């Protein structure tokens, strides 16, 4: 069945008709062409599709688009502002917090899920926040360093 939904994505309201079975991740990628949110698995394991729903991290592969009707979604495309990289993007760049980049959007959204609420999060808390995000390349050390450095930078601003 079809349903008309309005979802605010990165500050812009989008109204569209979707099939009720459409997953949020497919709505973002295919209806809105926001392909920064990746699909890495079919088992809610990899965290690549992590976005924020009303400020909390969620797996966009495990939510129907209709469940986001009337809510605010933030994706990786919403991080950069006016050509300026977000501190988490800068920090991943500077700390070599990515290799192939496939997990990176989900990794950054999960990281922001903790450091925006707790800028002084401990290393353990940061690692815990990234538990649900798999990376085959970095070995995770540089990722943790990147998140820590972004938290410091964000607290300064």
């Amino acid at each position, binding site marked *: *069945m079809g*349903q008309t939904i309005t979802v605010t994505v990165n500050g812009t309201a989008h109204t569209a008709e979707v*099939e*009720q*079975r*459409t*997953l949020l991740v*497919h709505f973002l990628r295919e209806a809105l062409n926001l392909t920064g949110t990746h699909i890495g698995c*079919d*088992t*809610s*394991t990899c*965290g690549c599709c*992590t976005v924020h729903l009303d400020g*909390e*991290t*969620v*797996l966009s*592969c*495990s*939510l*129907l688009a*209709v*469940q986001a009707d009337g809510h605010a979604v933030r994706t990786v495309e919403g991080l950069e502002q006016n050509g300026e990289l977000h501190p988490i993007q800068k920090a991943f760049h500077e700390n070599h917090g990515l290799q192939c980049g496939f997990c990176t959007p989900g990794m950054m959204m*999960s990281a922001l*899920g*903790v450091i925006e609420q707790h800028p002084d999060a401990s290393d353990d808390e940061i690692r*815990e*926040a990234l*538990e*649900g*995000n798999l990376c085959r390349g970095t070995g995770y050390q540089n990722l943790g360093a990147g998140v820590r450095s972004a938290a410091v930078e964000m607290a300064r601003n």
Partner: protein
Amino acid sequence: MIPSTLEYTKATSLDEALAAVKAGARPLAGGMSLMPMMRLRLAAPGAVVDLGGVPELVGICEDGDEIAVGAMTTHRSVANDPLIREHCHVVAQAAAGVGSMTIRNRGTIGGSLAHADPHGDLPAAILAAGGAVIVRGSGGERRIDVGDLITSYLTTSLAEDELITQVRLPKGAGQSAYAKFHRRAIDWSIIGVGVSIGADGVRAAATGVGDHPTRLTGFESVLNAGGSLEDAIAKAGEGLSPLGDLDGSTEYKLHLVGVLAAQAHAEASSR
């Protein structure tokens, strides 16, 4: 993959949700188990009713000698709640370890019980604490001890038209803990054990040992008869025969039951 064609409704009251369930809709709680099953087409409900808009199903409050937890309360809220952490620690600790932060943001206590995964942490922790659920259906409201709720793999004693509305946690389970073993941070527990040391003695329950969460009666009876912890650990796996699989043999899993019962007991005792 994409779920099969379905009709989605979002209930805004418990009555609306119950009517939809009675009409055959599958209740959708946090969706952390049902949505992956729908994506893989292991489940293909023709209709789902989202319980996320039913305010009376969310929240935690003290009610006499129990804590009433709305069925749609998330693992994150349960894990962080001061009442549960103090008076029913085993459940807060189990909730804190479910999946990842992102999963705990959506997954719910009622959903975990209704889904009845044989490796779920919450059912075993709540069983160790001596908790119960309140369910409502067209036959009215009833209370079911968690030990009588889960009957087999992914199977409960709920009637087709019944919903779990509340989880009742005893306040006397403060001296309690949950210990589990798994390979990666977000994996299901291979084995998990909850132990609660209350006024009525020691209660212990495990997940991963069979088709439903199971009391460790051997472990409990030794300790409650004044026996040594060493003897209790030796008897922890009594009567259990977990299936050997890729996660380990039956013997290995029985070994884990003893190790984790000892860990949970030590932590509970120190609280």
